[in-house]
């Protein structure tokens, strides 16, 4: 059950060649930079682009020969693509009306979905009068309206304000958890992929370079590209404000000092990320301004002769990226002890329920 796709599709001279298997109830994030072929994969799945060869099956039924309107797929488009001359309610009812569901029933179901996913939106409002976040919520409701067996979420946060993203993330997580079918989440922000998906597939130049759970991929990125993209340090926990504008983020495994940039209430849940390249390693206890200093054992050194990723059993666990030269110079070896430090301001924060967040909190990675 779920989605089984093994497809080759071509647009101009660009070709994607990917295999995706997603179980019912599972969310697979397809993560890649712009130009990796994400939208080509989406178009092939929903049928607006014909396959060059391959198979798409949903719950065991081939759909690749069907026109788009006959595929049991709900799509939440990048840039929402709400129909501008229809109200929020009419937009959500659209997939039902298109499938000949009687008007009254379509409207009833659309109203219930709007109530659940976008209760702040006036059902009679036109898309142009809504905020980006509201539009995306309506688009999500529209995708779910026809009770699809595959849900495709194409960068659902792209037009959502940084301040509205945490709420939208929470909503997407709730929707994908309760949705019984397979979900494919297209993402270019690693944080979205790592926090919302059960599994992540990395797409680069039209091919999938690695597939695994978020933890597997973060722990062992198979390429430089993957390391840059997803090899971030992630911390999930609660904030405790410190007197000077900084705050402590307590995770279940240690705490770090962060710089939220806004006043935070004690106990606010937050996701923080830190690039490995921002973590410095030291043979002795470092002196300086860095507020986060940890000591721990080296678990693993992945050295490709140019750069090395060093995994540390600190609390919380950290991954640092240093040059291969530093590894030799400092005499780093697996099992050895080392000091690690990073500045509070290097940590990007996603604060749930916050009105604003740090500007850099929107995108991570590269």
């Amino acid at each position: 059950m779920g989605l089984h796709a093994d497809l080759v599709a071509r647009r101009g001279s660009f070709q994607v060649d990917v295999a995706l298997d997603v179980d019912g109830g599972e969310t697979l994030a397809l993560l890649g930079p712009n130009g990796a072929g994400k939208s080509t994969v989406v178009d092939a799945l929903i049928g607006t682009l014909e396959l060059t060869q391959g198979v798409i099956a949903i719950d065991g039924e081939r759909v690749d020969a069907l026109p788009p309107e006959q595929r049991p797929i709900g799509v939440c488009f990048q840039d929402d693509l709400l129909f501008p001359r229809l109200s929020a309610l009419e937009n959500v009812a659209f997939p039902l009306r298109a499938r000949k569901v009687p008007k009254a029933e379509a409207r009833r179901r659309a109203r219930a979905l709007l109530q659940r996913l976008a209760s702040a939106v006036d059902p009679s409002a036109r898309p142009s009068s809504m905020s980006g976040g509201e539009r995306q919520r309506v688009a999500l409701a529209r995708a779910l309206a026809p009770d699809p067996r595959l849900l495709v979420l194409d960068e659902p946060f792209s037009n959502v304000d940084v301040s509205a993203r945490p709420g939208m993330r929470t909503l997407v997580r709730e929707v994908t958890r309760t949705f019984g079918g397979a979900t494919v989440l297209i993402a270019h922000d690693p944080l979205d992929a790592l926090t919302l998906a059960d599994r992540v597939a990395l797409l680069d130049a039209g091919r999938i370079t690695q597939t695994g759970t978020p933890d597997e991929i973060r722990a062992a990125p198979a390429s430089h590209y993957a390391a840059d993209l997803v090899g971030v340090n992630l911390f999930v926990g609660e904030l405790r404000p410190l007197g000077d504008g900084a705050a402590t983020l307590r995770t279940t495994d240690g705490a770090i000092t962060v710089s939220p940039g806004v006043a935070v209430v004690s106990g606010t849940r937050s996701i923080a990320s830190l690039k490995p390249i921002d973590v410095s390693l030291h043979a002795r206890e470092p002196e300086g301004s860095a507020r986060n200093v940890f000591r721990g054992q080296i678990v693993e050194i992945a050295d490709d002769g140019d750069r090395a990723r060093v995994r540390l059993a600190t609390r919380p666990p950290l991954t640092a990226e240093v040059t291969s030269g530093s590894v030799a110079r400092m005499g780093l070896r697996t099992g050895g002890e080392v000091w690690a430090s990073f500045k509070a301001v290097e940590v990007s924060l996603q604060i749930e329920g916050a009105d604003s967040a740090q500007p850099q909190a929107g995108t991570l990675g590269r």
Partner: protein
Amino acid sequence: MRSRTPLPLWILAGAGVVFVSLPVVALVLRAPWDDIASSLRGAGASEALRLSLVVSLTATALSLLLGVPLAWILARSRIPGRSVLRAIVVLPIVLPPVVGGIGLLAALGRGGVVGQWLYSTFGLQLTFTTWGAILATTFVSMPLVVLATEAGLRSIDRRYEQAASALGASPRYSIRRVVLPMLGPQLAAGAVLAWARALSEFGATITFAGNLAGSTQTLPLAVYETRLSDPGGAIFLSLILVVLSVAVLVAMRDRITQAR
């Protein structure tokens, strides 16, 4: 902040305004207002006005009926020779209307290429009938609908149509619920332009349908006929056309008179 405009510009612009508005002002000044009632009656004003409205509105409806699908094909399909097709379709815009009338006679007149057959098979004669006037008017009006609609279609992001089909809409449902509503302003603009052109149509109509009071004599034709025998009546008929034209301008106000 006021920008300073050089004096010669003011003078030339003023001359332009006078040149354009003087004929209209002159019509008002020269109209024999004292016997307006008898003049209008003598010139058959109400008959001509009724016919003008019937012909121009029917021609506009026909232009939309045929022009919108044509615009769709031109904007959306990938048929070969599309630019040639577009040139053929918009030819009546540049063609002198009298040439259009001659062409219509050759095609649909009683002895015409198709008209001969229509007459011998169905006993159908279009020349010198109101339908003839409507066809001649449609001939010159439809291209304006095609151009406006095609431009509108091209400005619509095609992803909306793809989204509609991915959300379960058949092509027909997508056109009805998504594309046509988005096309509304351009359709309206095309319709008003076509209507304006239809109201002022003269050459093709008089050539193909003749100038018969009560069946093909629209306002412009009536003006033409009465201008020698009853100059005062011709002026009143002209003023009716001026009023109708102003109505068109009002309907189009955002598009023509308020350039942005």
